[in-house]
């Protein structure tokens, strides 16, 4: 058994007065790509926000590389090497493509990722680097959002709904970049609505349902029946 890079145990989280997560047990091993699937409102995004400090949780509920990081300020968490591609991309509208990427380097971690490397992984971005970030197509914006997270040279990358609002061909193009990312030994969590995509790209799948883990297993072992039962609860 590998050493877990990220571990959540009995994680609970609240959005205002509403409880969103009810005791999530989760682990991500080094070099692993794990997908989280589940219906809208199942708590997937809240879970990622809890890992990155955007939603406050008890300190011991989240461990990163052995250290308790639950509820630390987001800036401290990213400096430890846990970066997120947020849902809806959330690029900085008044910054150019390259400026958005440079913001990702704020954490100041050393590592293999830099502007040149990103432009060679996503060549389409290079000629547009001085364009306003929101003038790009949805898929290209998603590449910028991924690149921005990679610029912090994380050891764990969390991706929230990469395929949201994108054409299937573009989704494929973006997920095709994943092997290049994990080749560096990075561990990745993807939250994904599309079950088929999630199963194809990941080694393990967690299914969330109403703030709880309803299913967990190796991606190629889970049957459609198991998944639809865990997904919809019927």
């Amino acid at each position, binding site marked *: 058994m590998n050493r877990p890079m990220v571990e959540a145990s009995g994680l609970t989280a609240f959005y205002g007065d509403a409880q969103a997560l009810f005791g999530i047990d989760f682990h991500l091993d080094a070099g692993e790509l794990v997908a989280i699937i589940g219906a809208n409102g199942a708590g997937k995004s809240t879970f990622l926000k809890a890992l990155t400090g955007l939603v406050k949780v008890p300190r011991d509920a989240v461990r990163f590389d052995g250290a308790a990081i639950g509820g630390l300020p987001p800036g401290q968490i990213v400096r430890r090497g846990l970066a997120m591609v947020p849902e809806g991309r959330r690029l900085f*509208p008044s910054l150019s493509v390259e*400026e958005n990427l440079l913001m990702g380097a704020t954490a100041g971690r050393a590592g293999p990722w830099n502007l040149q490397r990103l432009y060679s992984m996503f060549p389409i971005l290079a000629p547009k680097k001085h364009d306003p970030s929101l003038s790009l197509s949805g898929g290209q914006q998603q590449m910028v959002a991924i690149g921005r997270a990679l610029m912090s040279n994380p050891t764990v990358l969390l991706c929230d709904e990469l395929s949201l609002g994108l054409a299937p061909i573009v989704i494929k193009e973006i997920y095709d970049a994943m092997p290049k990312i994990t080749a560096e030994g990075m561990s990745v969590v993807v939250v994904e609505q599309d079950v088929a995509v999630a199963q194809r790209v990941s080694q393990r799948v967690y299914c969330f349902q109403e703030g709880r883990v309803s299913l967990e297993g190796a991606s190629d072992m889970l049957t459609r029946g198991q998944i639809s039962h865990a997904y919809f609860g019927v």
Partner: protein
Amino acid sequence: MLDIALQGLLLGGLYCLFALGLSLMFGVMRLTNTAQGDFIVLGAFGAIAGTSILAIHPALVALLLLPFAFGVGYALQRRVLNGTLGKDPLPSLVVTFGLSIVVQNALLEVFTADPRSLDSGGLNTHSVQLGNFAIGTLPLLIFMVAVLCTLALQLLFDRSALGRSFRAVSDDKEIAELMGLDSNKVYALATAIAFVVIAIAGVFQGLRTTVSPSDGPLLLLFAFEAVIIGGMGSFWGTFVGAMVLGLTQQIGFRIDPGWGIWLGHIMFLAVLVVRPQGLFPKTRG
């Protein structure tokens, strides 16, 4: 005719210096500093006090004042104003309004209500000949400094790493923090820079006319009008807004000495009615 235009633009230069700090703080953190005018007056009195205590040239005092203002701005934002920021704009308005009262009364206590001015060593009566016109050296200097400050702030905002963080926290504070940016520190640096411009404005105000502790609110009004007329788009927008205000007031003064400031207000209201987003509405975000 040309004379009015020239005088209006020179006056606009001063208003631009009044307004840039307000524009910067609003642009970065949506904070309206209602004590802007009082801090300008405080800057002027600081320079006056410095000149008489240290007994050195006002220009040297001004140079010493700038790093001091930077520190005051940084500390004020870090210790006080950061705690007022949030979705609700009211706390920051109330706190800066309170600061305005505190500054006014502290100045009144220390310097009394007598108007004072900064000894310019004859600079304020000196002029340069330009064709048929004689232009005051001091107003010309103020105008040039206003252009330089606008240019410097715009370059800082557009080109530097600090400017990039200013725009990033203004766009999306949560994501900026997710990237590892300390927004409280970024805000403090923005206010620090705004206070340097405020100190510059204060020194020039003290040189060109007399200042008294109760002047602040009127200066705030001019600054506010310049920012709104120009639109929240850019520092050049603020610059143009200040020019429009200066020109309008100067035209008013020519019609009747009592009309200048009033016509400026009318222009401000007209812009609000006709073009509420201001002349250069592209938000800095």
